[in-house]
């Protein structure tokens, strides 16, 4: 079992738990666990090149937030140096590091989410209670690549008719605007046709049926139970003030090992599962 094999409901709840804790718990321990967990999982899921590109982007975001925060907030008791007579404080810098850490952890977890949660799973989650919403989402995601192809076709057409795109920004802008307007008309025409053909085929007359094979198995239940247990443990500790940090005016971090361990395990679950699966695969190959 790896994360992408579980039932959509249990993996959705897993992501919600991790994201809520990462976004709203104010504690360095949780941010560190979350960043490390997301990095490990992304390393397993993505190709090396993609991974390093993402890593670079994340580090840039992180550094940008960390360095700019002390420029805005001058609270704190240990000034490092002064800019225009205002203090650049250590506390504000560390607060920025944490803020940036939480931001980049959220970005990375959403990357993992979009790798694991494919279109079929989204449709399953939205399709039951909100079928129209699900239809709009799937149709839109189907339209976008078609629009790309159409855009290229219109570009080529313009090139053939002698309207070249030059390199200057204004020219490029003008050309893109023209192409975009043409694209609007053609897309709407095809949308109306789609709508009419949907109506002709009896859209909305019968009961909607679904073509997916997700079954809530025993493993899903166990996974869900473990997630909720770990998450609520971390939340209760954070609610009672055992996992929190004060930055202004002085840094005071209280992170007890037990709640930190709970959250670390929660973040590491996908990585552990991936490693287990790949070990199993290696072992099976060795047997053959």
């Amino acid at each position, binding site marked *: 079992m790896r994360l992408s094999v579980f039932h959509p409901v249990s993996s959705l709840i897993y992501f919600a738990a991790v994201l809520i804790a990462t976004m709203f718990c*104010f504690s360095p321990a949780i941010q560190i666990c979350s960043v490390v967990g997301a990095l490990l999982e992304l390393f397993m899921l993505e190709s090396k090149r993609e991974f390093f590109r993402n890593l670079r982007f994340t580090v840039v975001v992180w550094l940008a937030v960390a360095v700019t925060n002390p420029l805005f907030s001058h609270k704190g008791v240990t000034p490092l140096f002064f800019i225009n007579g205002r203090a650049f404080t250590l506390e504000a810098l560390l607060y920025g590091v944490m803020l940036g850490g939480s931001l980049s952890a959220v970005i990375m977890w959403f990357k993992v989410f979009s790798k694991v949660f494919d279109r079929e799973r989204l449709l399953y989650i939205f399709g039951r209670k909100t079928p129209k919403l699900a239809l709009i989402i799937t149709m839109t995601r189907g339209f976008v690549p078609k629009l790309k192809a159409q855009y290229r076709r219109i570009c080529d057409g313009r090139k053939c008719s002698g309207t070249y795109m030059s390199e200057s920004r204004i020219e490029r802008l003008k050309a893109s605007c023209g192409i975009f*307007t043409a694209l*609007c008309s053609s897309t*709407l025409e095809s*949308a109306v046709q*789609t709508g009419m053909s949907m109506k002709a085929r009896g859209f909305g007359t019968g009961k909607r049926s679904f073509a997916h094979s997700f079954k809530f198995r025993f493993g899903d239940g166990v996974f869900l139970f473990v997630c909720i247990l770990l998450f609520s443990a971390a939340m209760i500790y954070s609610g009672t003030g055992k996992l929190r940090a004060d930055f202004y005016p002085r840094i005071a971090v209280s992170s007890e090992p037990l709640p930190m361990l709970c959250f670390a395990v929660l973040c590491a679950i996908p990585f552990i599962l991936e490693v287990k699966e790949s070990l199993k695969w290696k072992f099976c190959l060795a047997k053959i």
Partner: protein
Amino acid sequence: MSKKTFSNLIFLLLIPLLCVAGLLFFRDKLYAWLSVGITVLCCAGYFLHFEGKEIKSAQLAIISAMTALSVFGRMCFAFLPGFKPCTALVIITGMYFGRESGFMTGAMTALISNFYFGQGAWTPFQMLVWGLTGYAAGMLAERLKKSRPTLLIFGAVSGPAFSLIMDLWSCIWADNGFVPPRCRKFFVRLYRNDAGILVSFKEFLCKITENWQVRRAQSR
């Protein structure tokens, strides 16, 4: 569940529960938690309301086509920061296809374009703000259709309003409250980007609505 009970449920039960949970667990990030939570609930409430309506297949197809166009517009004009056709397309949808379509197009534009540009805690806020832009355009549809200057003014207000609200939200998220220098920095950035946003509105709103009116005239 009827519409009324659902909205009562949201306002009387879920939002207070959210506040209690925030006070219990997320005291240090209370504002961020509440703003994201309430926005998600509001969007969910509107989506459920939308589900309850009788909606023709053509309208669904048009909503998704307009959403796809504005998502694609955000991609193909990515080389010019600040120049985006999204808000213009959302306004046009609201104007011509009614307020529900406007809201759905706005909300779905935010949701789906963030699949390509990166999701985050900002997604629900973008959904709500773009959705409300479309809704407002739908409410003012008659006036906007009648006079070009009103349309341009509406576009000129709603585009910067979008970035203003998003910047206010990032202030709340970063500091759990307002820290004046950060707000000031955001506003300076906003005015620098404004020029691009305004030009993009003028271009798109005029061009597309013109096209539209010509086509309507032809089809009659």
